[in-house]
């Protein structure tokens, strides 16, 4: 056995032991050391860099590490194996993805306003905001030697009489506490019920005097980030809000790598544990603490997520999703309960899953569509969810069409050498001076935070600015020279946003031609999907009345810059609206309102799914869009005008 020490930039260390030949990335995963490995250890992404401080590692040289860097100890964890006692430095950028769990205090009015607006919008369409959870007060005659009915029948009979519903179900959890609660409260109790026209389910029973809160949990499971709210099921009030990185990230950044991982022996359990035990359950604990409730008071949960994520959440084999003919195990299901998957809330709580439309358009989109309200307006709206997969819905109250394109992880900072999620240290906005080529930027985090990388909205800004200032050409290649532009030994250009001494990490923060190329492909995928979908309907972009942009790219997204680089169509900027995490807001509405839940199922079944890979012109559109702003400049008159100035 050898001792392996992971040292962090803040001085802390994690020590563990390993056998000769053990893989360093695997050791880190087991020791709970966060090292970002979007490619899941294939040596293809080059992000799991660590620096050898003492001892030795058996480590292959890869293209990702330059000679000079190799000599100063940089290694890729995924190709390194242990052969002696060793100490490695894990740079901040390698673990920056692991956003600390954050439970919002909800003091921010904007946070609440999004949910309030969604509630108002949905009520405006005539959908009532109530659900099948109720608190009823029941009084029973105490038993006597003449009235020897057992407790459960006594309760059943009282409830039947009260609500005129034949079938009453009392689960074990209630049965267990029933004798004490009845006797302690002199047979005057409150019951928490779910009632349907022919069925009644008793979730819980309390004394008449007890203050009872009926809570629900809405969760958006993103491939990268998970966010959740705990709400009061009666009023819709938000009691707590939290977010955390999806614990599955260490098994790969994209859904395909995770599907492959879950196919390995024990894989389904590993991935389910990563999302539920490691991520959602600790979030629930923190949020319950912050809201001052008990986890048993959460009687319903709603999950909105892409198809792969809801399969992995439920522990269901997701492999068929990636294999032709791409058939999921379910579009919608109502047979999921908290105890089935080990979610730490009331064990009998029902889990609602926002319905999927196909393998690559999932519940996050149907929930988002509900929120976007495009189904309730005669105007033509485009809803775009920017994630690892880009999903689009276009339509109005008469029809809706959806498609998905693979944008890759670039919007969330993946596939970008200094990319990171929008957490502390991420550059989220940037301008570049035309003459001096010096950057000015805004960084996520407390004032004084030093830059360590770029998040999605920052990358859009940087590329747009580099293009407008003529530092890069429309192909994303560097054409101007200066202090901040440099070329490596292979001639690949890069722009340095922060030199090592200005940066908050041990490396320069820079954007390379390869990064730009990756991002151009991501934005090209989005734009060509928009064009392809619209032209299949014989529409063009001028006919779009509104564009709703959702996703974790961040509220910092600069729509003008997104148009400049040709990601979004060149239409008036006031048509663009950023609607935040619409998947979570949708889950919230589905949780709160049974009618909204039904509406979402209806929307899902009414949406036409278009498979872009079967459209012959998509590839042409895509190549045309892989240029800044576009090969066909007539599509971007506003941008061209700006360039001329």
């Amino acid at each position: 056995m050898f001792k392996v020490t992971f040292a962090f930039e803040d001085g802390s260390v994690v020590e563990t032991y390993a056998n000769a030949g053990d893989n360093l990335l695997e050791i880190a995963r087991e020791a709970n050391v966060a090292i970002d490995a979007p490619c899941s250890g294939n040596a293809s992404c080059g992000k799991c860099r660590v620096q050898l401080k003492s001892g030795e590692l058996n480590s292959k040289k890869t293209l990702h590490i330059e000679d000079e860097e190799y000599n100063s100890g940089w290694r890729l964890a995924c190709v390194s194996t242990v052969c002696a006692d060793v100490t490695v430095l894990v740079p901040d950028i390698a673990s920056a993805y692991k956003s600390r769990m954050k439970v919002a205090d909800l003091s921010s009015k904007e946070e609440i306003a999004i949910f309030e607006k969604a509630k108002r919008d949905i009520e405006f369409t005539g959908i009532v905001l109530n659900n099948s959870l109720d608190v009823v007060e029941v009084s029973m005659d105490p038993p006597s030697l003449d009235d020897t009915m057992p407790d459960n029948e006594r309760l059943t009979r009282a409830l039947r009489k009260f609500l005129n519903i034949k079938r009453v179900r009392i689960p074990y959890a209630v049965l267990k506490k029933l004798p004490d609660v009845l006797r302690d409260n002199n047979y005057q109790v409150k019951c928490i019920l779910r009632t349907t026209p022919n069925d009644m389910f008793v979730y819980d029973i309390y004394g008449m005097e007890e203050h009872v809160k009926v809570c629900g949990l809405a969760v958006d499971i993103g491939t990268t980030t998970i966010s959740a709210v705990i709400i009061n099921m009666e009023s819709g009030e938000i009691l707590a809000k939290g977010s955390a990185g999806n614990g599955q990230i260490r098994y790969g950044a994209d859904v395909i790598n995770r599907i492959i991982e879950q196919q390995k022996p024990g894989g389904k359990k590993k991935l389910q544990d990563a999302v539920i035990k490691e991520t959602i359950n600790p979030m629930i604990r923190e949020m319950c603490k912050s809201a001052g409730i008990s986890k048993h008071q959460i009687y319903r949960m709603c999950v909105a997520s892409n198809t792969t994520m809801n399969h992995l959440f439920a522990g269901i084999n997701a492999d068929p999703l990636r294999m032709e003919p791409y058939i999921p195990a379910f579009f919608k299901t109502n047979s999921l309960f908290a105890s089935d998957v080990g979610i730490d809330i009331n064990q009998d709580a029902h889990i609602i899953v926002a319905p999927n439309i196909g393998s690559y358009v999932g519940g996050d989109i149907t929930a988002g569509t509900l929120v976007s309200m495009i189904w309730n307006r005669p105007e033509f709206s485009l809803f775009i969810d920017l994630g690892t997969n880009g999903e689009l819905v276009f339509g109005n109250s008469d029809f809706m069409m959806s498609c998905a394109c693979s944008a890759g992880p670039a919007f969330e900072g993946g596939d970008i050498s200094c990319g990171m999620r929008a957490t502390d240290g991420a550059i989220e906005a940037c301008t570049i001076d035309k003459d001096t080529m010096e950057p000015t930027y805004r960084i996520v985090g407390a004032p004084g935070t030093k830059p360590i990388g770029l998040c999605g909205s920052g990358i859009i800004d940087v590329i747009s600015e580099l293009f407008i200032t003529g530092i890069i050409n429309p192909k994303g290649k560097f054409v101007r020279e200066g202090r901040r532009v440099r070329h490596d030994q292979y001639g690949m250009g890069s722009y340095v946003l922060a030199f090592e001494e200005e940066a908050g990490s041990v490396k320069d923060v820079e954007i390379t031609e390869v990064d730009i190329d990756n991002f151009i492909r991501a934005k090209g995928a989005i734009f060509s999907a928009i064009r392809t979908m619209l032209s299949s309907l014989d529409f063009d972009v001028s006919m779009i009345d509104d564009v709703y942009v959702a996703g974790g790219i961040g509220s910092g997204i600069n729509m003008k810059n997104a148009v400049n680089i040709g990601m979004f169509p060149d239409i008036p900027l006031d048509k663009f609206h950023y609607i935040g995490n619409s998947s979570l807001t949708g889950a919230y509405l589905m949780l709160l309102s049974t009618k909204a839940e039904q509406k979402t199922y209806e929307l899902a079944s009414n949406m036409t799914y278009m498979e872009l890979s079967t459209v012959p012109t998509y590839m042409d559109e895509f190549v045309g869009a892989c240029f800044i702003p576009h090969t066909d400049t007539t599509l971007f008159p506003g941008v061209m005008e700006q360039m001329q100035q």
Partner: protein
Amino acid sequence: MPFNQKPQKFNAKINTVTIGSGDKTVALGGNSTFPFYSFDAPTENTAKVGVEITDMGLEGVSEGIKAYYEGATTMADIAKKAAAMEGADFVALVLEGGDPNGENKSVDELIAIVKEVADAVDCPLVVEGCKNVEKDAELLPKVAEVLQGRNVLILAEKEENYKAIGAAAGLAYNQIVGAESAVDINLAKQLNVVTTQLGVNAQKIVMNIGSACAGYGYEYVVSTMDRIKGAALGQNDNMLQMPIITPVASETWGVKEASASEADMPEWGPQDERGIDMEIMTAAADLAAGSDAVILRHPQSVATISKMIKALA
């Protein structure tokens, strides 16, 4: 009802690009109709045919070609015979020996050959690199430099090396820039855009949009050329109005139908005949799809294709 011809008129035309100097020049492009649609509008310039020779001399060429060049011992002799070929409009010298994965001849060695050929003939010249992007980035600017004043077409810059080659040929030494892309209308246009942004005059660019031998995924070539001409004329897209030149010989003489010897494939018949057939079929299709010039190797192909062009003009 009598037939009433409705000409398809375009308000756009393909650029006219002249190569060569002195009295010996050829003009490529200039038309405002689809290929050979002389019934729609008069043809400005007919398509042109070039004769391919390489710095490797007669190594590896078929018997029929060897026979034509019989007696030629130097590159100068070969070039003269090529220029004299029936139907030839220009000579295309391919510097394939420069390929680092092949002979890897030095730039100096190749430049000497370029000079020898250029001095031997006064017809318009096209000089092709070795296809290796790094080597071409070094070699072709030198070619452009030594041939100053000859107004030659330098084939070709690609996306990876357009800055070095485009700047040398198009800006520094005032030659014609060949822009090579890989059978995709958007990639062809993108290269033209970045080349003109470098400062190269759009009227001094000729495209090689990539080619294939007929039967080898050739449908893509036809579709791409067809759409480029459609966009250039129909949509007046000035970033696609450059004439197209297609090096046919290097594609067709590499496929097994043309390269297998008669000894190996007796049932296929004589090698020369097969090679000529492949070359003529491919060149005819390229011209019909939109090429303004083709580069061929066999004297019989050159004669046949130039006859075809005249007959259809």
